[in-house]
């Protein structure tokens, strides 16, 4: 029997075809088709083959594959926290010699390269191919015009607009923070954006690193500021109240905003959300039917601060084919293909603004390029136990604002252990 298993094991080992790169990512359906379109010119010109696996439970799959000694060659977007662990365990390969570092430094903002060095030891473990910009407030220009509402330029404007909309008997906000397997994250985006814009990058970084207590005045203030958005009585500013906030999937957040007459006028979501608008109602057009403005700066000292998220790439097996592929993914040529198909921003400075398919996407790209303070998604960079607890806290707070103190105290308790145990 043992002989037989050994033989099988050898069989699989020796058939690792020299020209195939195994890739794991989260894209399926339309996104997978877009990714394939990106890869096609590369695969055609090099003759390299790609074996692609799509999974939404990527961290779990990667962890078990790596533990079993059978990782993919390349993986897109493992959570940064998981990548840091892999880097510490020596399970991912430093990319310094795999990608053209000179071109990378010329074409990417320094913050992207810093993000790729999770151990801060000069070793690059991930590169970024596409980005999402968070903290965009989406609205329907037609209904804004019909009611004479103006796009707010400052935080006070936003608060006033909120009151103005409410005085007509309609709720200002649409909100939906359910997400199968990850309930709460869309709500946690609010907290991140408020912390960054209100208290600045130092507090934000300390908070991510577990050095800023959740009960500290800054974080508590961020929750309270979000509470002003949610409205008095826990949820009176939001369509359907906390029950709707908690039970609606984030992708369906726009439906009541596009109802006639609208049931709410604004929603906060990242650059990817228009694809959900148009898949629910294909007649909706950018600019005329939906538009966005960036969440106004809360503290002018930190003007132009934005939370970003991105698709990252890491290499688990050092093969010439994998090196070529990861290098290709950092180029503007590769990134432009998906940019043209819509729904993605390119972090590469060489990507032409003309590649963006509509004026909104172009505006988003300009906003990303002009961002003064770019910070990566905070909860994604926290240990998983902390991230899960933060999401749960957001759910609890959206259901009952009066429990804020006990919610934050509980988060401090998790913070005390989460950073040491994993």
């Amino acid at each position: 029997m043992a002989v037989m298993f050994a033989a099988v094991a050898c069989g699989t080992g020796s058939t690792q075809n020299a020209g195939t790169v195994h890739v794991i990512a989260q894209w399926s359906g339309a996104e997978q088709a877009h990714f394939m379109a990106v890869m096609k010119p590369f695969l055609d010109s090099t003759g390299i083959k790609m074996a692609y696996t799509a999974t939404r439970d990527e961290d779990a799959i990667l962890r078990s594959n790596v533990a079993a000694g059978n990782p993919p060659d390349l993986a897109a977007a493992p959570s940064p926290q998981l990548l840091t662990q892999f880097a510490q365990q020596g399970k991912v390969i430093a990319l310094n010699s795999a990608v053209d570092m000179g071109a990378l430094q010329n074409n990417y903002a320094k913050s992207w390269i810093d993000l790729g060095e999770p151990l801060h030891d000069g070793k690059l473990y991930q590169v970024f191919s596409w980005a999402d910009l968070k903290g965009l407030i989406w609205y329907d220009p037609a209904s804004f015009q019909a009611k004479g509402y103006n796009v707010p330029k400052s935080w006070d404007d936003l608060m006033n607009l909120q009151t103005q909309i409410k005085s007509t008997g309609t709720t200002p906000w649409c909100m939906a923070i359910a997400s199968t397997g990850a309930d709460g994250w869309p709500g946690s985006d609010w907290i991140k954006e408020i912390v960054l814009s209100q208290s600045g990058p130092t507090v934000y970084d300390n908070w991510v690193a577990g050095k800023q207590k959740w009960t500290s005045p800054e974080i508590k203030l961020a929750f309270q500021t979000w509470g002003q958005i949610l409205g008095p009585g826990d949820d009176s500013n939001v369509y359907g109240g906390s029950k709707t906030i908690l039970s609606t999937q984030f992708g369906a957040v726009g439906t009541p905003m596009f109802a006639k007459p609208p049931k709410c006028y604004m929603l906060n979501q990242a650059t990817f959300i228009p694809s959900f608008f148009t898949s629910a109602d294909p007649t909706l057009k950018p600019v005329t039917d939906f538009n966005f403005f960036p969440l106004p700066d809360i503290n002018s000292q930190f003007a132009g601060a934005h939370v970003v998220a991105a698709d990252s790439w890491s290499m688990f097996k050092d093969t010439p084919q994998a090196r070529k592929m990861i290098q290709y993914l950092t180029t503007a040529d590769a990134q432009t293909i998906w940019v043209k198909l819509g729904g993605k921003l390119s972090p590469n400075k060489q990507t032409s603004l003309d590649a963006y398919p509509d004026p909104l996407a172009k505006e988003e790209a300009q906003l990303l390029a002009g961002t003064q303070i770019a910070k990566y998604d905070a909860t994604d960079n926290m240990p998983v136990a902390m991230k899960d607890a933060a999401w749960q806290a957001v759910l609890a707070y959206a259901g009952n604002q009066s429990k804020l103190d006990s919610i934050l105290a509980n988060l401090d308790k998790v913070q005390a252990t989460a950073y040491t145990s994993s």
Partner: protein
Amino acid sequence: MDFSVLLQDIPTLLVVIIGVPAILAAYIIGGEYLVRRLPDKNRPQVRPWLWVGPALFLVAAYLLLPAIFTIKQSFENNAGDWVGFNNFANQLGDFPNGGAWIAIRNNVIFWLIFYTLFTLVFGLALAVLFDRVRYEQVVKSLIFMPMAISSVALGLIWDFMYQYQPPGQAQTGTMNALVTTFLHHDPVTWLQDQWPAEGFNVLNNLALIGAATWGITGFAMVILSAALKGIPGELLEAARVDGAGELTVFRRVILPLMMPTVVVVGTTLVIFALKAFDVVYVMTSGGYNTDVLAFRMYKLLYSSYNLGGASSVAIILLIAVVPVLIFNLRQFRAVEARR
């Protein structure tokens, strides 16, 4: 579909198609050859071991050894250092709301009792009632159908069933449509609502259990129905001739005769209840106090990478299952003996 992957792996394919049967045949022929060389009286002692050998090897390699490693790991931290009962203390600390307690409560109280009870009662009622109608086969097939759906699809279907829209809006979820139309009650957020109390959330647990019950009732029904068909008609007729009403016939004749089957189905369901995972994973991911042990183990292992914690939850689950397992085996043997 791209089959080129199969072609790349031709050596593996050859090994599997030719090698496996060849090695098995060699094992049997070679083993028998060696056994024949033994003295006559020793052969009966050796031969059974020869034949169960491969099975024993597989059980040891894929069940016993991993179980032993899991037990060992539950006393270690991630670095592999011995930490005594620390992992268990973490999981079992902060009674009643900390650690694994919510998962334990949901598993051994809500799931174990309600899932088992609902499925048994529905399964038994359907089996007995459909036994009396002509369209029995058709209805039974319909009830059995959810068994053919994967649990993930089942979870998604029930996600739609439980959908919530604010009061006054058209309800898109079937359950809320029923509640608002017939009970004139405000719509309910079935999966989030922790009625009656946050520490004792019956409603959303029952919502999950209801979805799981829908999927498994067909299984209980067909087995119970088969047992019912095994009861001789003369017995029932004799009871009726003696003046027994239908309810009495069910209570005094049918139920006692079906009891062994009911118990076996029940204990199997108890094991299903203890290892509940998919419905929780898909529908709530353990949120709003609906965590269960299997999901907690998965979270600790794959998300938090807390190997010791995950192993200790696995051991807690194992300890919870063992008594049921023993009871089930005994009962199974008792039923076999009666045949």
